[in-house]
């Protein structure tokens, strides 16, 4: 319950801030028109209302003995770095960030190895082989077959990508 209420509370705070932010940045409306801020404000007001209803609903649905902060305070924060979900999200973010710098080929290969390992593939040879084959296949399918130029990276990674594209 506490985590759900916390998430909803954060949403209310954020959308309330957005409600006042848009009115301070929008120019004044011409007569007979709808201001560019009014539509988002209608949506934000509805959002705040429905989130508040949802929070009340969560509170009402939770049995009295469950209305405490144990779901937040009882979390094993030390075990976060071992949590598969957290590791998976971190790998995804690193992959998305690395594409610009080291290009599609290397970042995808490293991502494939890391994520396949996370998903339970233990045999290193199979891990490397499948990662290599899938990256090469996808690269040539989209880059050569469909002329979609994938991220090249910078420096030597860019030179390498250009070399492959010239093949």
């Amino acid at each position, binding site marked *: 319950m506490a985590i759900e209420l916390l998430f909803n509370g954060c949403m209310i705070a954020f959308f309330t801030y957005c409600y006042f932010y848009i009115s301070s940045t929008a120019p004044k409306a011409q007569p007979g028109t709808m201001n560019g801020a009014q539509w988002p404000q209608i949506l934000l007001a509805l959002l705040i209302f429905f989130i508040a209803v949802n929070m009340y609903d969560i509170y009402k649905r939770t049995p009295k003995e469950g209305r405490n902060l144990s779901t937040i305070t009882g979390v094993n924060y030390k075990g976060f770095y071992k949590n598969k*979900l957290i590791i*998976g999200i971190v790998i995804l973010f690193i992959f998305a960030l690395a594409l610009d710098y080291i290009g599609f080929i290397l970042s995808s290969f490293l991502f*494939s190895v890391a994520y396949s390992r996370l998903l339970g593939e233990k045999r290193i040879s199979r891990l490397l082989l499948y990662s290599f084959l899938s990256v090469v296949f996808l690269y040539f399918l989209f880059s050569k077959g469909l002329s979609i130029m994938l991220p090249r990276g910078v420096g030597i990674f860019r030179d390498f990508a250009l070399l492959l594209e010239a093949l």
Partner: protein
Amino acid sequence: MGLLISGFQLIFQPLTFMYIVGGTVLGTIFGALPGVSASMSVVLAMAFTYSMSPLVAIAFLVAVYCSAITGGGITAILFKIPGTPSNAPTTFDGYPMTLRGDSSKALGISLTTSAIGGTFAAISMLLLTPQLTNAALKFGSSELFAISFLGLSVLTALGGGDVIKTIISGLIGLWLATIGMDPLMGFARFTWGNSGLLSGIEMIPVMIGMFAITEVLDQTVSHTKIETDKTVNKVKTKLTSLKELWVMKWTIIRSALIGTGVGILPGAGATIASFLSYAIEVKSSKTPGKYGKGEPKGVAASETANNAATAGSMVPLLALGIPGGPAAAIMMSALVLKGVQMGPLLLKRQPEFLTSVFASMIVTNIIMVIVAIGVAKIFSKILATPYSILGTVIVLLAAIGSFAVFSSTSDIMLMVIAGVLGYVFHKLRFNPAALVLGLVLGEMVESNLRRAIMLANGNIVAVFTKPITAIVMIASIAMLVWPLIKSFIDKKKGTVSA
């Protein structure tokens, strides 16, 4: 009848027919590749049209367009990655069918109903286009606002129980659609000085993230084994039998009519058609609880409607010279490049454009079934791959799909953020599908409403009292509010009986 025969005479010339077959193969493969949307498929196929005559070119591009929509259903069913936005509702029941080992059946339903929807709409449009042109001309901003609002009324049918959370998800989608430049006044909204946000939140990365990345994250934590015995070892896409089709007859008829009708409206298109059709199916069902858990009628509703909408979307293009959506705009530019003058006089001067387009659609919808069976067979084999490998390939395909739209790595970051948010939504029982629907319809709802108010000199009452607008708005509000009232009544009944 004469129109239809003259259309087939054009299409069955050997070279033209060959191009249509080629276009169908290309379109199905492109559509099945995540991130290669129907409009991108048409763009990619345009390179082949430079040496073709205008008539052959439009017949070829139409074949690519129709088959791409069908191809998109393959990955929606097998991997929960909608190949095109209009295949998103197909994932709701198609993917659960795959999880329980019924992917062959789901693919069969998808292909058969796509072909029926597409063929029905093509024949209807061939016969009705001139009359529909006059009707479509009566649709102004207020009517288009009402239609897009009708699309939003789908929201409460996507809830699967918790209506409030679904409405919140839909409103977040609508709010996300307001990020970027204001469509009428041209000032930045919710960008906080970040120039990357000026162009707004892209729909495709969000959609791919919300569906595909969320699923991979979910599988990372709690891996659900896909039942491969039925799907991979016997990879026969089972075409739906007449008996099964008879059971789904009302679903198919309803969805074909909705798809055709929505497709005609400029800017609406296959995505709204498939969401709307799915929602109406859920609402009209005696067993709505089965939807979202692998109900074959859910797949039929979405796939019939999106293919029917492809024919409808060609009406504004051919009759008025207004592209009904991005794919039609690309086709229009291909024709303009060839010196064809688009506009209301096109069909009066060259009626063969009308006949060749719709005859090509009919032929494509038939060939497409055979081609798609082959493509589905290849894609189903991939399911035999262990998830430790398949999961990473899905993420790579999703990343390429997000990147390919604008060649921007920030769209891949957006996809990852949407995936994480989708996972949180999934865990807290919010509704990612409703968020995507809000994002898809947001810009259309807002700009049409504001334009209508401007045209009525600020008189809001005048906007909503136009006959078509009023009828559609009443229907929309009834559809939107009824589940709320029903859930309230159910709660009351529960309290009384307890």
